[in-house]
C-alpha cells in the first residue's frame, strides 16, 4: 500500500508542476462548422505545449484558448489550427490538411450538428 501511495503522490506532484504561470486568453474566429470540428481542434490544441484550456463555440465559430505566454504565442496557436485544416482569423487552413477533413467538416457548409 505504501508503494501505491508514494506513486500517487509523486504523480500528482508532477501534475502540479506542469501547471502554473498566469495564462493569457485569445479568441480566434475559425472555419469550424460542426461538433466533429470542435472535437478535432480542441483535442489537437490541448496536447500542444503551453496550452491550458481550449473551447470552441460552434454557433459563433469562436475558439477561446488560454495559454502560457512563456511557452507559446498566438501565431503558433493559429498555425496549429491551420494544420488541423481550419482557418484561424486571417490565416487560411493548410490546403493538405483541409483536403483530409471529412466531408461534414468543409467550411462551405452551414453550421450544423
Amino acid at each position: 500500500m505504501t508503494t501505491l501511495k508514494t506513486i500517487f503522490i509523486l504523480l500528482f506532484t508532477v501534475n502540479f508542476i506542469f501547471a502554473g504561470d498566469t495564462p493569457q486568453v485569445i479568441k480566434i474566429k475559425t472555419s469550424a462548422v460542426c461538433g466533429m470540428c470542435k472535437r478535432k481542434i480542441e483535442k489537437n490544441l490541448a496536447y500542444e505545449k503551453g496550452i491550458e484550456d481550449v473551447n470552441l463555440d460552434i454557433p459563433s465559430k469562436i475558439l477561446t484558448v488560454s495559454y502560457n505566454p512563456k511557452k507559446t504565442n498566438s501565431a503558433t496557436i493559429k498555425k496549429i489550427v491551420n494544420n488541423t485544416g481550419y482557418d484561424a482569423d486571417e490565416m487560411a487552413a493548410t490546403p493538405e490538411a483541409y483536403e483530409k477533413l471529412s466531408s461534414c467538416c468543409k467550411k462551405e457548409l452551414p453550421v450544423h450538428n
Partner: protein
Amino acid sequence: MLTRKFSIILFILFSINSIGQSQIFVSGKVSGKNEKGIQTALVGATLRWQNSKSGEITDPDGFFKIKKEADNHQLIISITGYKSDTLMVHSTDFIEVVLKESNTYLDAVTVRGSASVMDKLSPIQTEIITSSALKKAACCNLSESFETNSSVSVSYSDAITGSKQIQLLGLSGNYVQMNTENIPNIRGLNTTFGLNYTPGTWINSIDISKGVGSVINGYEAMTGAINVELVKPESSDKLFINSYLNSQGRAELNVQAADTLSKKWSVALLTHISSQIAKIDGNSDQFLDVPLYKQLNLINRWKYSGEKFATQFGIKYLTENRVGGQISFNPKTDQFTNKSYGFDSDTKRLEVFAKLALLFPSQPYQGLGLIINALNHNNESYFGFKKYTGAEKSIYSNLIYQNIIGNTNHTYKLGSSLLLDNYHEFFIDSVYKRNEVVPGIFAEYIYTFPEKITIMLGNRIDFHNLYGNRMTPRVHFKYDINENSQLRINWGKGWRMPNTVAENFGMFVNSRSVSITEVIKPEESINYGASFSQEYQLYGKKGSLILDFYKTSFQNQLVTDMENAGKVLFYNLKGKSFANSFQAELNYNPAERFDLKLAYRLFDVKNDFTTYNGETVFLAKQFVNKDRLLFNAAYATKWNKWKYDFTWQWNGKRRIPNPAQDHLHTKDSPLFFAPAFSNINAQVTKVYKNWEFYLGGENLGNFKQKNPIMGANDPFGATFDASMVWGPVAGRVIYSGLRWKLSDL
C-alpha cells in the same frame, strides 16, 4: 363575431374531414442521410400513426402512401439503422422526410463512462469493452483484459504451467464461444494457452454476451460468447509501438504497422514478442512462481472494401516455448529424469483466414458473407515424466445470407457451415484420435417492434459424423419497458466436444494417477436467464443498474474428479450438474470522466461426483467461489491527459478437494474450504500527443496462497501436487510501459 366565423370554419373543416375520411391519404418520400450528408431513398421504412398498430412501408424509391386516421396526427417513421422521426401531419401535402443515419455503435449504445458499454439494441445481454478500457489495465493479453469486468473473471489453474482459465456464469471459459472477428479461436487444442495468444494492443474491442449466443456462429456458445475485434487496418495509426516491463522480469514488445493503400485497400502487420526472463521464487519452495517463456506472435491482414464487394484475408503465426517447475530444472539435461521436476511446452500454430462479403448498395439490409479459416496447431509437452503431444488440423467455413421480409422490422439470416476437425493426441501411454466432419445449417429470424420489442428465434441442425444429428434451438426476447430500462429473457441449447487432456494441463502437474474412465461424450446443456438494466439520474448525474440471473443445467458434462487423494478422474456426468449465477452491477458517474462501479456476484455451481465405491455425492464445484465483490473507480483529467484506475476485488471462500493423504471421498466426508482473499490493481497513465506512459501494480495487497505446491520438497513423491491452486501464487507486481504512435508518415 370573430369567434362565430371561426367556429363555422371549424365546423366545415370537420365535416369535410369526416365525410372524406375513408379517402384521405397522406403520401410522401422517405430518404436517409449519412454522416457525409449524402441522401438516398430508403426502402422498407415503416410508417405508422401513433397508437395505431398497422402501418405502411416505403417502396424501392422511398415513396409511401398511408391512410390518414382521424384525430391521429402523429406519424412515426422508422427504419433500422436510422433515427426514428415523428411528424405532426395536419394536411395531405406531400411529405418529405429525411432520416439521419444512426451510427449504431454510438447511438444504440449508452456510454457508461469509458469502462464498459452496454449494447442497447441486441436482444442478447452484451457488454462491450472498448480499447480505452483495455488501456486502463496495461497488461498484456486477452487473459488479462477482464480485470475491471464484473462478469468475467480469471481463475488460477495450477502453480506451474501458467495456463489460465476464464470464468463466466460460474463455469469455465470452455463453455464460452471465444471468437476473433467471428472466427472460432479459442477451441480445440488452443484451449490450453489460447487466452495468452491474443496480445492486448492488438485488440480493438471485446464483446461479452451472457447466456446462449446466436446460432449463426455455431453450437458451442453454451454459457456465453466473447468476440474479440482486432485493430482495423484502415483506422489504425501508421505505426504503433508498445513496450512493457514488470518487476518479475516479464518483458513485452508490440510493433504494429498499418497503411491505407488506396480508397479500397488497406493492410496491417501486427507483431508481438514477449518473454519471462527472470526466475522468480517468492515463496522459496524451489519452484518457479511463473514459468519462463518466449512468445512470437504475428498477423498480417489485408482488407478491400468496395461498394458491392468486400474482403479481408490474412495469416497468423505463433510460436511459444515455456518452461516451469523447479528452479534447478534444465530442460536439456533433466528431461525425463528425477534430477529435478520440470514442465516444458512448445506450441506452434499457423492460421489463414478469409472473409468475403457481397453487398447490395441499394438494399443495405441485404448481404451475403463467407468466412473460411484453416489452421494447424501443434503442441509438445511434458509434466515431469508424463509426456504429451497434440496435433490439430481444422477447417471452418460459414456462409451467411441476410435479408428482410417486407421491411426491416422482419430480418432473417440463413446459412450453412462446415467444420472439419482432426485431432491426434498422445498422453502418457494412450493415443486419442478424432476426426470430426460437421456440416450444419441454420436460420435466425428477428422481429422488431421499434423501440419496444425484439424477438430473435434461431435454430441450427448439425450433422456430426461421430455424434449424430443435433439440433440447437435458441430464443432471445427483449422488451424495452421505456427508453431507460430493458428486460431480456433467453433460453437455448448448446453443446461441445471437450478435449480432455488439452483442456486440463493444470491437472497433470502432480503425482495423481490420471484416468479417463470411459469414452468421453459431447457436453450438452440448456441455459436460460433474464436480465434487467435500468439507467437512472442521481443529482443530475448518470448511472445504471444491471441485474441478471442465469441457470445452466447439464445433460452431459466432462467431470474432473480430484476428490480422492492420488487420483484425477475424468468421466461423463452421472446424475445432475448445474450452475446458477446472479449478478448485480451498479454504475455511477459522479462527475465528468469519473466512473464508479460496484458489482456483486453469487454463484451456486454443483455437480454429482461418483465416489470410489460407486455412490453419488452432490458437491459444490471445486475451486469456484460463491461470492465475489468488485469495485472499480476510474478518473481522467480533461482530454484524458492523466488517467487513474483502481480496482478492488474480493473473492469469497471456495470448496477445494480434501488435501489429506490417502483421502477417499464418501457421502460423509467433511468438506474443505480455501479462505477468502482480496486483490487490488491500480494504474496511472500520462498521455502526451504521440505517446503515453503508464505505471501500475497488480495484487498490490501482496496476497499469496501459502504453499501452493503440496509436497514441493519431494516432487517425485506421492504427495506432490501443484494443482491445488485457488489464489495468487506470485505476489505484488509493479509494471510500467510506453505506447508510442505515429498517425501520419
